[in-house]
Structures are given as structure tokens and as C-alpha cells.
């Protein structure tokens, strides 16, 4: 891994150029009608889901904390952004940032006490938190309660979701390839050893949670201004479970895999629509099959690696003896 400034700038330049190229291609396809409004909406949903999945990825795959309540932060971001825009007429971009910040604040406040729980206990607690947020919103008449909040201006465009996604990729990539990211990964690998090496694990867990919450909040804001109408049950823990599925299928700590699995899984229900009601049977069936095949595949990979290690180990020994 290179850490030099010039290499880093070059890398950034190529990434941005590639992103702009992808954006231009899609914009052309949209403006010429090759991608109609329906597919454009799916495309935008994919971008929003990628932001959500990457932020979940930071918490689950990089920091190793199983959260089943990430959609709560999406809800907070969506409602905060929509409400402030409707009440004060704050400009769109500031509303988005506001939504992200409020979500991030909640992430911090929730993360602090709950992140000392481990594994399944953390999972159920975050899931419970998600449910509490949904019920809380249902009881706030100023936010529309259970009936939902209509009349949000439809300001989210393809450019907004696309570049917010690029921004998310960049920021989270920079985070995970810095000391902060290393600290998060060390928490995932072995909390006790990490603490013994001077890593304040609580601090980095909360940092991952807060950052994740911020981007989920940002995605929530984009979603609100895309949908123009939001209601609480959209954000219940089933949405969180979807996110967990995206990142688990994407592979451990892997940006590209996460993006690919999110795109495919967001599009899959649309592709399966031709099957009618049966699609909701096919989807979980595919999920189970993929999980099983994935494990088989990992086993094969491990075997290959083991053979490789055997060779490498021998070389290593001879070297050590020399």
C-alpha cells in the first residue's frame, strides 16, 4: 500500500475521472431515453442503497459490530432533512447535511452505551433501537406520525445521488485506509489484543458507528427528497436486515463487492417481477443458495491458500534458518 502524496493524488484523479465518465454515460443514456424514468429510479435507489450499504459495511465488516438497526439512522436523517426543509425552507444541500449530522449525533449517543455489548446482544439492542425510533416517529404529530410526511419537494436528482455516492466511497475509503480504519479493523480482529497495543477500542467503535450513522442519515435525506413522501415503517428493522444482507454477500471489508452485491440485490426484485408473487419465494431461495455456495467457494479458496501456504511456509523456514 502506498501512502505517498503523489501516488494518492494520481489515484484520486483516476477515480474521479472514471466516476465522471460513468456519470456522463448514464446521463447520456437517461437523456436519450435508453434508460427511462423507471430504470432511472431504480438506478437512483441503487445509489442510495450503496451509500447505506457502505456505511453499514464500515460497522459490520470493518469494525466487526453486528448492527440490525442501521435503518434507524436512515429514518432520522430522512425525517430531520425533510422536516427542517419544510419548516424553515433551508436549502436542499444544507438540509441533507443537517440530516446526516442529526443521524450522526444519534449514532454517537446510541453507540456510547450500547457498543460495550457484544455479538447477538448488540444485534438485538440495535434492532430494538430501530423499533423504538419507528414508534417514536409514529407518535410525533409534527412529523406526520403514522400517516407519514407528505409534500417534500422532489429535489433529489440522479447527479445528487451519484455524487453523494462517490463522496461516500471516497470518504469511507480514506477512513479505512488510515490509522482510524486500522484501529477499527483491529477491533474486529481481536479487541483484547487491540487494547493491549494501545487502541482505545470504544473510541473507534463509536467513531465507526457515528460515521456510519452520518452517511445513513445522508442517504435518508436523499431518499426523502426522492420519494417526496416518507412514513416510519419504511425504516423498520426489515430495511436494516436488507442492509446486512447486502454487506454480508459483498464479502468482508470489501468495497467493490459491497457495491456489486447492493446493485444486484436492489435490482433483483425488479428482474423477478415477471414471476409475479412467486418472486418473493425465489428471492429468499436464491439468498440461501448463494450463502451455501459462498461457503463452499470459500472452502475451496482456503484449500488453495493452504497449499500455497505450505509452499510459502517451507521457503520461510529455510530463510529463517539461513
Amino acid at each position, binding site marked *: 500500500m502506498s*501512502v505517498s502524496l503523489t501516488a494518492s493524488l494520481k489515484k*484520486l484523479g483516476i477515480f474521479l475521472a472514471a466516476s465522471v465518465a460513468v456519470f456522463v454515460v448514464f446521463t447520456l443514456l437517461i437523456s436519450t431515453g435508453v434508460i427511462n424514468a423507471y430504470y432511472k429510479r431504480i438506478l437512483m435507489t441503487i445509489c442510495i442503497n450503496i451509500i447505506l450499504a457502505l456505511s453499514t459495511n464500515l460497522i459490520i465488516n470493518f469494525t466487526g459490530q453486528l448492527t440490525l438497526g442501521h435503518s434507524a439512522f436512515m429514518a432520522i436523517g430522512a425525517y430531520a432533512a425533510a422536516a427542517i426543509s419544510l419548516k424553515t425552507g433551508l436549502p436542499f444541500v444544507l438540509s441533507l447535511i443537517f440530516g446526516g449530522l442529526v443521524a450522526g449525533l444519534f449514532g454517537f449517543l446510541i453507540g456510547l452505551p450500547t457498543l460495550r455489548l457484544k455479538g447477538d446482544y448488540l444485534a438485538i439492542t440495535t434492532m430494538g433501537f430501530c423499533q423504538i425510533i419507528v414508534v417514536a416517529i409514529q407518535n410525533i404529530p409534527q412529523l406526520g406520525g403514522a400517516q407519514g410526511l407528505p409534500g417534500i419537494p422532489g429535489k433529489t436528482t440522479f447527479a445528487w445521488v451519484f455524487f453523494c455516492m462517490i463522496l461516500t466511497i471516497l*470518504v469511507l475509503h480514506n477512513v479505512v485506509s*488510515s490509522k482510524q480504519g486500522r484501529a477499527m*479493523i*483491529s477491533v474486529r480482529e481481536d479487541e483484547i489484543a487491540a487494547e493491549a497495543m494501545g487502541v482505545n*477500542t470504544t473510541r473507534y467503535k463509536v467513531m465507526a458507528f457515528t460515521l456510519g450513522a452520518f452517511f445513513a442519515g445522508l442517504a435518508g435525506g436523499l431518499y426523502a427528497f426522492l420519494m417526496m413522501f416518507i412514513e416510519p415503517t419504511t425504516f423498520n428493522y426489515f430495511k436494516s436486515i436488507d442492509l446486512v444482507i447486502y454487506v454480508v454477500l459483498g464479502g468482508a471489508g470489501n468495497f467493490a463487492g459491497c457495491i456489486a452485491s447492493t446493485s444486484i440485490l436492489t435490482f433483483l426484485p425488479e428482474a423477478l417481477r415477471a414471476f409475479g408473487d412467486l418472486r418473493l419465494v425465489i428471492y429468499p431461495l436464491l439468498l440461501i443458495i448463494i450463502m451455501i455456495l459462498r461457503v463452499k467457494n470459500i472452502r475451496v479458496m482456503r484449500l488453495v491458500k493452504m497449499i500455497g501456504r505450505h509452499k510459502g511456509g517451507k521457503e520461510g523456514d529455510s530463510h*529463517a534458518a539461513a
Partner: protein
Amino acid sequence: MPLLDIQNISIRFGGLTAVADFSLTMGDHDIYGLIGPNGAGKTTVFNMLTGVYTPTSGTMTFDGESIVGLKPYNITKKKIARTFQNIRLMKNLSVLDNVKISFIYQEKYGLTSAILRLPSFFHEEEDVQKKSLELLKVFHLDDKKDEMAANLPYGEQRRLEIARALATQPKLLLLDEPAAGMNPQETQELTELIRWIRKTFKISILLIEHDMRLVMSVCEKIVVLDYGKIIARGTPDEIKANPKVIEAYLGEEAAHA
């Protein structure tokens, strides 16, 4: 002023007193050994020293400051580092990244610098890269820097763990059975390594070890624990001659030695 001053620390788990009235004083550049039969409470002493457990009573000062009740990562910042009895490397990370973990607390740049890639990020990261590689070179692990830690042979994993602990820049290094599972030749190399570490890094070392040959040859002083209590302390020769130790623990092994 001694580097480490432990006075009468005890710890109880429920009704069981795991360690009672443990006292130990170490100066700069000392190598001490902590021995005793299995379950005598040696690792528990390490765990109290590194903040994993908080002693029920007693005082511990390091470099003139109390370290009782500090979190493990804060104790590391006070310059005490350790290895683990059952190797605790970050198995899925590369050898290099394992060492870099130890530099996290020493790097000063914040999240903003990381996200915006400000100059401080590059300076410090470059510095860490350099230091880590140097350390790996010293431990003959530099050509394996990109290997996954889990794929290293056992002896190299032990070496990497020591390298990782040293990367935290300690003044006191706690080694928990570093020779466990090593063959005689590797143990011999380890003996050299420990002496060399003290000399090069100018630090003190406290060693838990079952391999008496290693303990007797490197340690200047030895403390013997049995059932959580100190039953003897002294130089290797004194310990070898102590009938209590022979009775409690050394027995037949002493006969072989």
C-alpha cells in the same frame, strides 16, 4: 526511583483469591522471571499489570505514576507492552499491518486529516511505514511483510507478537510464555533475542516461562508463585537451591537441570 513498583496486590474472583499480596519492584533494564506451576496466577499478574483486571487491593506504580484502574490501552500509553500466552495476532491482517496497529496511539493526525488527506496524514503514515519496516527487518520478518499473520509458522508468529509489542515503544515488556511450543533450537534463538532486545531497546523485561533453561539463563531475578502467593524470590542460583521451590514446583525438573 524504581521503574515498576507493585505493592501487595491481590485479586479475588468471587470467593477465590487468585493472587494474594503480590509485590515486585523492577528497575530500568532488568530482566525478571515469573515462574510457578500451571494455575499459580502468573498470567493473572500480567492481566492486572496491563489493566485487563483491576486488583481488589494493593498499589501499582509505573514510572512514578499509579496505574491501578487504568484501561489496558492507557497502560500501553504509559509504556508497558505485553505478549499473550495464546498468541493473539490479528490473523487476517498482513504482518506489516499487525505492527502498524501498535503505532495507532502514537499517530497524532485526526479523522479530518484522514478524510481530507492533509499533509499530516502523509507525513505520519510514511513515518509509521518506515518504522514498521525497520522493526520487521530487525525481527527477520521484512520479507514476509505482506503475508497474512495466520500463515506464518508458529515461531515467527511468536516473533511477530514481540515485534508488535515493541512497536508500542515500551519501557517494560511483559512476555507470557514466549517459548511455549518452540523446539530447543528456536528457544535458543529466543534466548539470544531477549538479551538482544534489552540491550538494543534499553528496556526492562518481565518473563513468564516454563522453560527453565531459558528462565535461568536470561533472568537476573526470579519470582516464584504458587497458589497465588509468592513462595520465593532471588537470583537463578538461589531459586535453584530453594527447597520450597523444589518442593512446590521445580522438583524433578531441578534434578534434570
